[in-house]
């Protein structure tokens, strides 16, 4: 402005972090998963992701401009990330109108009504996804069989996911050893050659993203490791107790949306706890609830519900689980 000296309280220096950079790093970490999604599901993956991203950005812009009359903040990248993650939870043959409705619920209901970025208690992408699952159960549970660009879009051939196969099979009384022959091998599951939502199939791509996020200091190890660790321990116990009714832990971790959920959804800053101790408890809660839903519940997959349930406990955890302060005196000391 002028030649006047600037006076402000310390610190007078700022690090390189910014909200936008963090969000863009998450998008970069999701690129491997996007590439594998196109590789397996072809044009459907591109259409679903593009629709979701555009709808999310559009709804946030419209609400901020015309209803809230506040400055537009779509450039901070949070709606972009929500759009991509929402898409990655959907089957690649889902019609556009359902995606638009889901984006509306994710942005307008789950995020903007609570006050916008930073104020929502529940993960917006998951709220959108669960809403779509309950409102459009048929479309949301028909999973295209991966055939690359031959998969097509709404006309894709569908088949059951490994988790659904196991669930249905066990209900019909088939022994697990027989069912395991029908599902892809662990190697195939690791690379992503199985039915499922766009983003959840390729474990290898998601793990590359995880390493990138750790390296760029976007997330810490606590939540993904505690989700996967608690799931591994719980499923191991169940498997050891009854190998004919319960699948092995490797299957449980590679099947379904655990990796996507643990690495990208549960680690959402706004809806996860802030203190490392609390993060570990949160992750364990998600792992245990997921397994309970998978084994004893009606749905074949429980990660989305588990994360939303644990989201509800996060304000409580933030209020009561405090880090140990420097110089804090130990009680009875």
């Amino acid at each position, binding site marked *: *402005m*002028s030649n*006047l000296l*600037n*006076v*402000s*309280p310390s610190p007078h220096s700022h690090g390189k972090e910014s909200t936008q950079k963090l969000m863009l790093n998450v998008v970069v970490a999701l690129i491997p998963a996007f590439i594998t999604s196109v590789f397996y599901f072809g044009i459907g993956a591109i259409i679903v992701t593009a629709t979701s991203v555009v709808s999310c950005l559009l709804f946030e812009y419209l609400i901020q401009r015309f209803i809230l009359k506040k400055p537009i903040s779509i450039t901070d990248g949070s709606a972009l990330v929500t759009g991509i993650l929402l898409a990655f939870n959907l089957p690649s043959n889902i019609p556009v109108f359902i995606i638009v409705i889901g984006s509306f619920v994710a942005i307008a209901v789950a995020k903007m009504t609570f006050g916008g970025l930073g104020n929502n208690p529940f993960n917006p992408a998951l709220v959108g996804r669960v809403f779509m699952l309950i409102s459009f159960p048929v479309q949301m549970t028909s999973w295209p069989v991966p055939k690359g660009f031959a998969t097509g879009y709404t006309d894709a051939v569908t088949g059951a996911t490994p988790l659904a196969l196991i669930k249905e099979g066990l209900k019909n009384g088939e022994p697990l050893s027989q069912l395991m022959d029908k599902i892809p091998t662990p190697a195939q599951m690791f690379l992503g050659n199985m039915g499922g939502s766009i983003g959840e199939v390729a474990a290898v791509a998601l793990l590359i993203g995880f390493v990138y996020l750790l390296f760029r200091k976007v997330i810490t190890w606590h939540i993904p490791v505690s989700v996967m660790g608690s799931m591994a321990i719980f499923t191991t116990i169940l498997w050891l107790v009854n190998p004919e009714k319960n699948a092995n832990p490797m299957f449980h971790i590679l099947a379904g949306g655990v990796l996507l959920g643990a690495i990208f959804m549960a680690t959402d800053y706004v809806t996860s706890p802030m203190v490392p101790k609390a993060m570990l408890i949160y992750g364990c809660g998600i792992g245990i609830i997921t397994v309970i839903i998978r084994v004893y519940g009606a749905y074949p997959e429980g990660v989305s519900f588990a994360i939303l349930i644990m989201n509800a406990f996060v304000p409580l955890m933030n209020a009561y689980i405090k880090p140990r302060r420097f110089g804090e005196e130990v009680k009875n000391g």
Partner: protein
Amino acid sequence: MSSTVLITIFSLSLLALVSAVILYFIAQKFKIYEDPRIDEVQALLPAANCGGCGFAGCRNMAEALVKADNFEGLTCPVGGASVMAEAARILGKVAPVIDPTVAVLLCNGSPEFRPRTSQYDGASDCRISHSLYLGETDCSYGCMGRGDCERACAFDALHMDPATGLPVISDDKCVSCGACVKVCPRHLIELRKKAKKDRKIYVACSNCDKGGPARKACNVACIGCSKCYKVCEFDAITIKDNLAYIDAKKCTFCRKCPTECPTNAIIELNFPPRKPKLEVQAETVNG
């Protein structure tokens, strides 16, 4: 009617009756006796819970009024004299007569009069900038313009004017609760006795520096020259620490002091224009 329906009606009614009896006895056992007059007095109060009376809410004020021996020191500025009189009548006490007041800002240092000598870039909060340094100008007493008072006002009576950087108080909305007075870190807002037609005469300055530095920092600062003090026939003006102060209770609005002031630090508001005489008039500011 079928037996299922009869059984349902009978069992639900019995359940309801038993619950009602249990709830009645529990309510009686855990009942807290409260003076019924507290509810009566609370109904009179404006229910704004603004804290202007010094209590946490209207209920606490009602309790205090019922328990107090007299109304000394107790008043609801929002409800005013009529509410206090009514409360006094119900409780059989006497309400002291208190003059209505209104909030007034004792500073006129807009950038036009008070040049900026630095730029503040910290959090937009007057208490924070006040604890950091003297301020963006050379007057260490004047308004910092960050709007703590505007945020404290629960009655929409105070708004920052972006052109002057000073708060503007709406006389019709101000209820004299004192929230702005408490929050201003420089104690620039005063609750002054209200006059008819919202007329005001006050020294719009709080600068206690000697005349030279004060005037150098702000063109309309009070320099403590005492000319106003000398011309006042009603003993309403006091000079302390190089600063003049007009007591609103003693001021008779004779309008002599604003013309005497050499720096135009004294402001008169809502008066009819002066008849042009020999000298040029002091213009009314912030009209």
